[in-house]
């Protein structure tokens, strides 16, 4: 099991929902309206007058074999327009009850 942390411009909300549905990702936690900015590129998304855009974030817990598909989907979304902004990070699940 892996945890995939996806942060994305909330303009991509519907696409992420669709990807989860498409790949059969069932378990996830979702935060609406979070702020952040990219490590290397990307404008801050701060919900201020200066930086009006906002992010949402989600951690999806998936089987190992789904991770490449998920990352690929994220990459495809990102390629539509890189300015909009979406990133995915993967953790190992050490333990669970």
């Amino acid at each position: 099991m892996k945890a995939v942390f996806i942060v994305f411009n909330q303009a991509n909300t519907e696409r992420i929902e669709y990807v989860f549905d498409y790949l059969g990702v069932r378990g996830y936690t979702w935060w609406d309206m979070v702020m952040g900015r990219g490590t290397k590129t990307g404008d801050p998304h701060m919900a201020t007058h200066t930086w009006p855009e906002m992010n949402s974030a989600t951690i999806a817990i998936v089987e190992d074999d789904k991770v490449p598909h998920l990352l690929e989907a994220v990459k495809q979304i990102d390629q539509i327009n890189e300015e909009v902004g979406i990133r995915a990070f993967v953790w190992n699940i050490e333990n669970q009850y």
Partner: protein
Amino acid sequence: MSIYKSAVQKPITTIMVFVAIIVMGLYSLTRLPVDLLPEMDPPYISVMTTYAGANAADIEVNITKLIEDRLSTVDKLKEIQSSSIDNMSIVTLEFEWETDLDVAVSDVRNALDMVYDYLPDNADRPTVFKFNTNMMPIAVYAITAEDSYSGLEKIIDEKVVNPLNRIDGIATVSMMGAPKRTIYVDVDANRMDAYNVTIEQIGNVIASENRDTPAGNVKMGKDDYQLRIEGEFNESSEIRDLIVGSYNGQNIYVRDVATVRDTIKDISIDERVNGMEGMRLMVSKQSGANTVSIASRVQTEIARLQTTLPPDIKIEEIYDSSEFISNSISNLSETLMYALIFVILVVLVFLGRWRATFIIALTIPISLIAAFIYLMMSGNSINIISLSSLSIAIGMVVDDAIVVLENITKHIERGSNPREAAIYATNEVWLSVIVTTLVILAVFLPLTMVGGMTGVMFRQLGFIVSITCTVSTVAAITLTPMLSSKMLKAFDKNRKQSKFSYDNTIGKALDWLDRFYEKILRWSLRHKKVVMLVVTVIFVSSMYLFKFIGTDFMPETDESRINAMVELHTATRVEETMKTARTLENEMRSAYPEIVLISASSGSDDEAGIASLFSQNGSNYINFTMKLVPIKERTRSVFDIANDMRKRFKNYPEIVNYNITTSQGMGGSNTVDIEIYGYDFNTTNALAEEVKQRMEKVPGAADIQISRKDDRPELKIVLDKEKLAQHGLTTSVASGYIRNRVDGLLASYFRESGDEYDIIVRLKEDSRNSIDKLEEMSLLTPQGTTIRVKEIGKVEEFWSPPNIEHKRKQRMVTVSIKPVDIALGDLATVINSEIAKMEIPQEVMLHVGGVYEDQQESFMDLGLLMLLSLLLVFIVMASQFESFTNPFVIMFAIPFAISGSALALYITGTTLNMIAALGMVLLIGIVVKNGIVLVDFMNLMRDRGLELNNAIALSGKSRLRPVLMTSLTTILGMVPMAISTGEGAEIWAPMGITVIGGLIFSTLVTLIVVPVMYAVVSRHGERNKVDKLRKRFHFINTGEHEEGVS
């Protein structure tokens, strides 16, 4: 959940809400009456008191003064004026506008109750008269007849007036100058004396013979009969055979001492239409009724009634207010439509997308239709003010939608799908959209608080623009995102672009424009001092232009009508006046082929009552009303014709005075009035005459009128009280007798088929047409003897002023002057300098008033309004930007808007009138809007860490299109208004001109000056929050530190 998110997620609800608004608006539209102007009750109350037999001076002392003193304490009274004329005192109270006149009327009544006891016994109870615009006739018809002339009154009354009265919404139909059937018993003075009968005797006999009396019931058998004694005359000739007395045992019949004439009343007024005998019919409507629909029903009804009349009776329309109204309204509707087309074209050119254009264009009808709901709820009408307000608003209502849609498009182009883009893009701009609307409200809402007559006009404008803009903002953050989410297509990068597609043609041109502007901006930022110097020079020199721009109160309109009042020598008899009227008529007919119809009334109709309050009357007056062909069918304007007419009238020696007016709607007659206050008639008369003579030399001063008429020759009989007493008479008894002999005794009424006609007994004309004959008149004493007038008094000839006018309880003469080919303000300046040269006696006070005074007051009001708007705009902006300097930078563009207006006024030769000045006030809001868009973005760019000049240049480039778009929509929206030449267009053209001029100029200047000013007042790095933070947390210095974090 936010409003725009709900709107996008519930498209049906959103659509339904707006459909509801449209349905209600359209419903209101069908219910709204159409009128020329908003209904405004002029705050005037008149108190009329008749005191028969008193001359002007008596009236002044015994009636007017008492009433004035008592009424001057009534609440909310602004000014008190009075006019004392023979037999009558008229006190006119002017209240503050928007005073509740019903309350005022009852206050006035209470005050009058207190004064009534002190009035002379014979004076009638004062009547309180509330002036109302509804009393002005909505249509006037001329009725001419040949053979049927003598019976005209009855025919018209039965066949025209009664059917017309049945039309819903008509208040009164009144006839003026109708030939009235009257039965005269003209008594020969000699025969009367010979047979020893008196006028009173004859009158009594006629009255007591002409009577039907019920005499109770008679029961006969099973029936009950009413008993009546019938004495009423069936024929007027029966009067001749009445016995009035006996002389030497012989019966004396009326025919022995008098001739009985069943005829039409002696003329005191002569109504002619196109030179033919006739009368006038005036139709007035009930309050709140729809002028246009009533007038058109009256018209069709009259066309139908025409067929029922004898063939020689013709009905022609002299004046139909609905014609001007419907022409103005259709002209304005046309203007509105052109504005709509222009606005849509601008949006299409800038956006290049049909769907986007449609979404934006849709906000126009929605917000405009919402205004009808307001009009309906506030009980207003569709009039030229409300329609003009709509055409002012049309360019502004799209602005918010443009800003929202532009941002949505930007997001879609970045690859978001339309639904998400609609929500998040609106989220980014909704606040600034609301702020710009607040700025507009800050300018327009104060308009609703202006007082005075101008306030009544501006209230609708203020409310309509505020409401439409508010609705458009709501639509922009709900309907626009919702429609965008449904209608805009996701952006396709690989779409093939043809060579002539939008992106390759106009799009490229606009891109070039963006870059060009960026270059200019960067240059200006490097040469701030040069730029500031140039614009200062431009501003100062444009202010200099104001020296050449005249000032006026209201633009005059060409209503295709001319009214001319011609005054002949005092006491000219009406027969002579008529002759002059015919000559003038012929001359005007041949000189001005544009005239369709001339209606002339010479003399005065003493029974016309209220109608004659509107025009000057007297046997030596002629009032012409001329109707011209529509504007489009002639080359000369009514003003040209009126001017030419003035020259012609000067050539007639018998004309002592004339006054030509060209409009009666808005603006009325623009005059400068010089008020001369002073008690002594001779001093003030001389002064008024001197003013008149001086003013005649002033170029552009025309129609100079002195309100106090020349002294009129009068005859008075001075009775010797002692001699009266010896004969057992009193002054009132004797004067009653004399009145019966000269004016006539109304003995009784002759009744025929339901109508009553006066039977008047008096001396025949050649028994009372010289001083000798008046002195020979015999009166009956209580002792039964007859005495001659000369035995108890003598007849004297003297001169008396026919009218005495008061203002603020002081005697006053007004010299009113009409400006022709000169601005009102300029004329007033010349007049003031002329007056300064005059020697004015100490006890006399001069005051320059009239419309000029209204103008001054209104300009003051507007000046205050401008300050208020500026302050409110500043407040809104300062709180939005959380800064004192930013609003200042933005407002720096306002002076240049004024410069642009001055330039536009100067080039078009328009005078600075109320409407143009209002345009300048509106400019504040419109100009500031552009500045907000720019400065807001500059702040944003700097907050994002860009260097000052770079931030300014980039934001300029990015915001150029929205600024140009909102400016162009407003400018082009006003163009049809500014250049329209149809009916009623003159009123709003000045506003169109000022706004267009001001906006073009200020937009160009704003694009350069505002960024430069921004650079001047800003310091590099003041918005760099990172540096500030670093200073606060200087104690944290661990690990490597990356320099210049952005």
